């Protein structure tokens, strides 16, 4: 299989991450290869599957344009970056990022802008999906610039997550992309009220030790009174997500349902608010291995792009021009009068 885009994982340690990256690449019609320095090919998960490996020199021979996705110095925002039709996308190890060899191999550097000081990177598979989404030609401009981006950030509801790893990574993405609070409709008990093992695995995926996001448990099928509700899905329902205003502030609730179990009933969402609209991600393939963290992180990144950030350099304000008011306020003296409480009714 030869593809115009190749996703290359550099020294990925976690086989589950590697598998999700393969699914992310397939979602965008890209090939996925790995520079295997951690014995990934020997993992049980890949037994019989055959992990496609690649070396640095081969990447260069494969694509003249090599884009590194990491928070490296001088990295451009992934939003609005024109990578062209053919490129290799390099993503690095979960903890250490790209190796020096791969970082120097890159002809371009991009990053997903993060808003949190404590969660400064996404799950590697989620980051791969976001990068592929924007570099594969999603019609999105650069990140918005606003003086008060916080006032434009909508509320977030993660609806019916079915897997604790997927939810944990999504929560990590939400915190990293700037949310300080999220609602969770935990109908499958993967976050609240789960057993100890599920609980610790989910929280590890969310980097809960340093992730300060407030998670609010919402009862299943509860009703809310948001003026505007936007449901983001991968199905072809509603308008493309980049054409929908996702920067409506606290009066807007953005719902990202977990569709891994296949069910999606548009009628269910009227309970959340007065006006419900649907937005879909522009994914090049309709059939793919669904991962909640991939779809949700792409949706969160798009919201984050629209919400924007403060200008990097604050324009210096000129000196305030003098203003002289002529008002009676300066002339009148207001005489106060003490009225005892018992006399107040007769006053």
């Amino acid at each position, binding site marked *: 299989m030869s593809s115009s885009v190749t996703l290359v994982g550099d020294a990925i340690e976690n086989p589950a991450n590697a598998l999700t990256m393969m699914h992310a690449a397939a979602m965008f019609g890209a090939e996925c290869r790995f520079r295997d320095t951690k014995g990934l090919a020997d993992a049980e998960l890949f037994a019989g599957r055959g992990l496609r490996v690649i070396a640095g020199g081969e990447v260069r021979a494969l694509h003249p344009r090599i884009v590194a996705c990491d928070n490296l110095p001088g990295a451009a925002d992934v939003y609005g970056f024109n990578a062209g039709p053919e490129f290799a996308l390099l993503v690095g190890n979960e903890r250490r990022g790209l190796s020096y060899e791969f970082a120097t191999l890159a002809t371009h550097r991009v990053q997903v802008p993060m808003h949190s000081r404590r969660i400064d990177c996404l799950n590697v598979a989620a980051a791969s999906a976001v990068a592929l989404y924007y570099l594969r030609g999603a019609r999105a401009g650069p990140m918005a610039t606003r003086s008060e981006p916080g006032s434009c950030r909508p509320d977030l509801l993660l609806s019916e997550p079915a897997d604790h790893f997927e939810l944990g990574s999504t929560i990590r993405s939400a915190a990293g992309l700037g949310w300080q609070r999220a609602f969770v409709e935990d109908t499958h008990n993967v976050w609240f009220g789960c057993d100890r093992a599920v609980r610790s695995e989910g929280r590890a995926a969310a980097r809960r030790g340093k992730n300060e996001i407030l998670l609010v448990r919402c009862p299943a099928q509860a009703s809310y009174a948001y003026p505007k509700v936007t449901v983001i899905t991968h199905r072809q329902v509603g308008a493309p997500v980049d054409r929908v205003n996702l920067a409506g502030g606290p009066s807007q609730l953005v719902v990202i349902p977990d569709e891994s179990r296949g069910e999606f009933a548009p009628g269910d969402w009227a309970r959340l608010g007065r006006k419900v609209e649907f937005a879909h991600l522009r994914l090049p393939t309709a059939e793919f291995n669904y991962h909640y963290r991939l779809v949700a992180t792409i949706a969160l990144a798009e919201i984050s792009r629209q919400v924007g950030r403060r200008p990097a350099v604050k324009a210096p304000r000129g000196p305030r021009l*003098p203003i002289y*008011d002529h008002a009676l306020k300066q002339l009148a003296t*207001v005489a106060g009068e003490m009225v005892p409480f018992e006399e107040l009714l007769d006053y």
Partner: protein
Amino acid sequence: MLHAIGPLALYGVRAIELTRGRAGGARAPLTFGRYRVPGTVVLYEQPMPPWRLPGSIAPAAARRLESAGAVLTPLAGAGATLVDWPEGTLRRFMLEEVLLHEIGHHVLQHHTGKRPVRIARTRDHEAFAQRFAQRQRAALSKRSADGQ
């Protein structure tokens, strides 16, 4: 009136705006005018008289209003003051007191050249504007008395 004062009052004036209401109006409903550097005078719309003002009015301010023709009636029981403007007096107050005061600010700002900076402390600025308005008012009334 400004022509009667001469080029001093007109030089550099960019606009004299008659404005309805005032930004943040509820906090200071009785703002008469504003001078905005460089060269913009704003005269605010005033409520229909009589005005019922909270508290009592300071003697100096009361003298200024009365000299412009206002009739001040203290409402002792209610802790308020009623300010009435008989016919035409409010208009004259806005022109001869407020407009000339703001023009006084503008004249003082001449000394900065065209730089939009503060030339004096606010207190001194206000005092100069007040003296300017008094002088010009006196000159205008003398001129009208002389029949010019």
